[in-house]
C-alpha cells in the first residue's frame, strides 16, 4: 500500500494538518468574544474541511477528482455564508451597539 504516490508526503500528513486547523477553529468559535472573530473561526473550519476533501480527491479519487468539485461548492457556500453573516453582524451592531457575543442574549432563556 503506497499512499505517498510519487510525492514524499503521505495522506495522513494532510489529515493531521486539517485536524489541527479544524480543532483550532472549534476552539476559537467557542471562546471568541468578538463576533467578527467567530466568523473567522468558521472560515478556518471550512478551510480544514476543504483540505480534507482535496487530499482525498488527489490520493484516493485521482481520476474523477470529485473532491475538488465538492471543494468548489464549499468555497461558494462559504462566500455566501460570509456575506450574510457579516450583514447580520452589521445589523446586530446597529441595534445593540456592541459586537460582544456575551451580550447577544435576547433569545437566551
Amino acid at each position, binding site marked *: 500500500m503506497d499512499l505517498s504516490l510519487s510525492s514524499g508526503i503521505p495522506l495522513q500528513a494532510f489529515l493531521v494538518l486539517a485536524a489541527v486547523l479544524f480543532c483550532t477553529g472549534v476552539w476559537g468559535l467557542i471562546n*471568541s468574544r468578538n463576533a467578527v472573530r467567530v466568523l473567522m473561526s468558521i472560515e478556518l473550519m471550512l478551510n480544514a474541511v476543504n483540505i480534507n476533501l482535496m487530499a482525498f480527491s488527489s490520493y484516493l*479519487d*485521482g481520476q474523477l*477528482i470529485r473532491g475538488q468539485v465538492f471543494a468548489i461548492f464549499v468555497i461558494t457556500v462559504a462566500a455566501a*455564508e460570509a456575506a450574510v453573516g457579516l450583514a447580520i453582524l*452589521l445589523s446586530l451592531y446597529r441595534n445593540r451597539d456592541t*459586537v460582544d457575543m*456575551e*451580550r447577544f442574549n435576547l433569545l437566551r432563556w
Partner: protein
Amino acid sequence: MTIASTTQQICFAVLSTTVVAGALGVVLLPNVVYAAFLLAGVFLSVAGLYLMLNASFVAAAQILVYVGAVNVLILFAIMLVNKREDLAAIPGLGLRRLLSGLVCGGLFVLLIRVAFTTPWGSGPEPVGEEATIRIGEHLFSDYLLPFELASVLLLMAMIGAIVLARRDVFSEDIGTGEEVDQGLIEKARTPLLLDRSVR
C-alpha cells in the same frame, strides 16, 4: 529520496507551519485587524497546499474568493464595527476555556486516531495537470444541477445581505406620516435593543 520529494516535503512543512501558526494567531491575537490579516495568510498557504495537490483551479478559486472577497469583506466589517470596548468580565471564563480546550483536544485525538487506523487503500493514478478539464466536465455534466443551484444561492445571499445590512430609508415616517429629513440617515441612530442591565 529524490530531490523532488525533498522539495515537496520542505514546501509542505513550510506551508503547514504557516497554516497552523496563522490559525493560532487568528484565534488568540487580541487585535482583530491583525487576526484578519493572518487569516489572509492562512488562506494563501492553503492555496499553496492545493497547488501541491495538483489542483491549480481550486487554488486560484481559493485565492480569488477567500483572499479577494471573503477576507476583504471581513476587513470591511471590522472597520464598520470598529469600536473600542472593554469587554465586561464574565464568571467562569477560565473554566470555559479549559473545558472547551479539553473538548477540542479530544476531538483532535479522535480525528488523528481515525486518520491513522483507517486502511485508506490506494486510489488510481491522479490526473495531475488535467484537473481543470475534469472539473469543467463535472460541472457541466453530472454536477450541473448543484452548479446552477449554487448560482441561485449566491443571488439569494446577495439580496439577503443587502436587505439585512442597508439602513432603512423612508421618505415619510410610518407612524405619523410626516416627512423625514433625509439627512437623518447619515446621523447616528439610537440603538433599539440596548441592554439596559449592563449600563
